[in-house]
């Protein structure tokens, strides 16, 4: 794997991790506000 390939992989993974964290936060936020 080339260094450029590694950087590209890392960038993609960071975007996905941010999505995961945002989703956990969103779930708590929705639950705090109830179903409606």
């Amino acid at each position, binding site marked *: *794997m080339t260094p450029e*390939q590694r950087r*590209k*992989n890392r960038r*993609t*993974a960071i975007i*996905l*991790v941010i*999505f*995961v*964290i945002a*989703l*956990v936060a969103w*779930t*708590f936020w*929705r*639950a*705090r506000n*109830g*179903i409606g």
Partner: protein
Amino acid sequence: MSSVTVDHIPASEGHVEHERPTGWRRWVFATNHKDIGTMYLLFSFFMLLEGGVLALLVRTELFSPGLQFFQPELFNQFTTMHGLIMIFGAIMPAFVGFANWMIPLQIGASDMAFARMNNLSFWLLPVGATLFTVSFFVPGGANAAGWTMYAPLSLQMGPGMDFAIFGVHILGASSIMGAINIIVTVLNMRAPGMTMMKMPLFCWTWLITAYLLLAIMPVLAAAVTMLLTDRHFGTTFFNAAAGGDPVLYQHVFWFFGHPEVYVMILPAFGIISAVVPAFSRKPLFGYASMVYATAAIAILSFLVWAHHMFTTGMPVTAQLYFMYATMLIAIPTGVKIFNWVATMWRGSLTFETPMLFAIAFIFVFTIGGFTGLIIAVAPIDIAVHDTYYIIAHFHYVMVAGSLFGMYAGAYYWIPKWTGRMYNERLGKWHFWNSIISFNVTFFPMHFLGLAGMPRRYADYAVQFTDFNVIASIGAFWFGFSQLIFLYLAVKAWRGHGQPAAAQSWEGAQGLEWTIPSPAPWHTFETPPVVK
């Protein structure tokens, strides 16, 4: 998939073989996708046996009415932990094992994108599984609230529930890491010329599954964390007495839970889409429509979660929406079934064990799909909710779907994994015993459910006895039949049987069949060029 031709490059060109670690270090510090795939598959088979033993304990108690062997509290622990272990310990890790082994080989990548994270994803599994298993021995026993862990029951249980929550956290973290690894590998590490629409369908279905996992596992993690904080830190998300809402838990859980069903079936669709063309000696019919149908199923799976909750008292308009939205899923699923049958149409069919399991999958999974349509109808669902009809439905999907799909894949790729052909006669014995005993076990449960036998009870009214006896006999038959596969796989792994050729099956297509069998320690260090 359009036909793929390759400028062949020797699979282990330029590699120094003495770098390969040996002994326990090879496995504990494994970063090779094939070793990690093997560990995933072994682990998941072990968990299949553990979950299977729990199922047999359940069927032992249900062999006759009245309480014979276990008190209801322990019986409920068995049913709950059977579900959790099979879903999070057996089916999901098994498909990640297939992904680890096959995705790099099918797209021409040298390994997974993040090899060390891959190691961590695997080694989290035994930790989570240990939490599940030892929870039986803590005061109050294991989680007995059902695999769904509905509040308020789950707020009231002993420390076994905390073990289950932590176990789900850990196994969920493993799944998320595995999903990130698969997405990055498929998106960024394909060989030159391997465009997305040339990828084998197994890679497509796993890519879509990985996105599903990323969208649902954080929601489950949040839901069980809320359970934990409600239990120990004074929050009241789900505690009605303090202004919380137990039904909220069901909404959050099923927002995870319904797509989770597709996490456990889409990779099997990918496997069947590899096996059926190989043994029909024809290209897959409607490749592009298969890709779009998979994506459509994934999207729809997020829009139907409350069909699990028709009995919670939701408005009729909501019932109607969730009923019709659920029925829509039959359309892309029907596209898939049609395409598999059309692939076989006028093909030069042979019926080796992988093909037998694939055809059985199509038949029996379709039965599970049809009963799914039936219980999508809200008035019917209200009548059969939490009965054995539901048990029958989802076992037709999870066992005949996921497990038979995995067996089709395992028999198909065992020659590539081990370098040996398995014993075909024993494979067929395994198949026929499994398919017959599976139906003996689960078909009568439809009748039990329609007659009103509720799930999650250790006892039942005497009129349900005959079908329960049949189901219990079938369950033991099915359970012991799986030992045939264990014997076969261990034999092939230990080097017994006919040596397998690189192209182990006449009609098999794809990059994995261009490398020797067994697949060398390192493959595609120099990427192949796909035309």
